[in-house]
């Protein structure tokens, strides 16, 4: 697991870099914004069922949101790329 200070520094940088890419993808995929609360919900429930301390739950929620969002974003990018190539 990435140490907390490094994770806190990387998150805003990654978000800033990913924002224009995400905005472009969102325009191509209608309804993509509706998926974001579901990613957050799944991360929250998963984190809360693996921890008991509220601080640990909060940290794990952010951790899983970034991972889940990142993996799903990657899958989306691959699917869009394949669609563009066909």
């Amino acid at each position, binding site marked *: 697991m990435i140490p907390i200070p490094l994770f806190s520094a990387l998150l805003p940088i990654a978000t800033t870099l990913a924002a224009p890419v995400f905005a472009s993808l969102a325009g191509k995929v*209608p*309804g993509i914004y*509706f998926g974001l*609360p*579901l990613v957050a*919900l*799944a991360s*929250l*429930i*998963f984190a*809360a*069922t*693996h*921890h*008991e*301390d*509220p601080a*640990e*739950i909060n940290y794990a929620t952010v951790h899983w949101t970034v991972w889940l969002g990142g993996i799903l974003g990657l899958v989306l990018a691959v699917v869009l790329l394949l669609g563009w190539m066909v």
Partner: protein
Amino acid sequence: MGQQASPHAATPRIVAISPDDGSAIDLRNPALAAFLSWCVPGLGQIYQGRTHKGRLFMGAILATFLAGIWLGGGRVVYASWKPGEIRWPFVCQAGVGLAALPAVLQAAQLNGPARQPFLASSFMAPPLSSGQYVSRAYADRLVRRDPDIKPDDFFDKPPLRQFRADQLSMWNHRLGHFFEIGTLYTMLAGMLNVLVIYDAWAGPLGTPTEEDRRALKEAGATKAGDRTS
């Protein structure tokens, strides 16, 4: 699952171990807690005294379920077991518990002798299919309340009325992709409640610590060493 406390205790307690600080979590009656968490998400945790988690689960899952109902125009949660029209997403939606129960009652009433849902209300009632018979009261209410349904959509077959259109197609046409989005929200709320139910029954799942990973690695190395020697 949980661990039994000391055999010398008067009443054995079922406890789980917190993965964060190693403290004991009293699960009280795990089966009852799991059932309560199915009925209302998070209620089992509140029963166990884990109030913060209980409120968190209750708020998150019920909010998602209600958001799904709202996005789907109140049409996405319904039960149907008619051949060819089975509503499979309801299997996941039922995970939310009592909040989804009205759908079963409404379907039973509509398909039963009454030929109308409770109070002739279309809340969580399944869509009418072509050729389906309903009561006059329900037909009149639908014509009054639903902008997509006209009086011509019913044949008069005293004492009932026969629907001649397809209400599910009307819903999909009116709601567009929001029908799927609402369905997805409510399904996910139900499926995630299964994890909550397990948390109430067995305590937090925990994640392996560095110590656990090292111990597993050493155990694996020892086994490999035993096999080769």
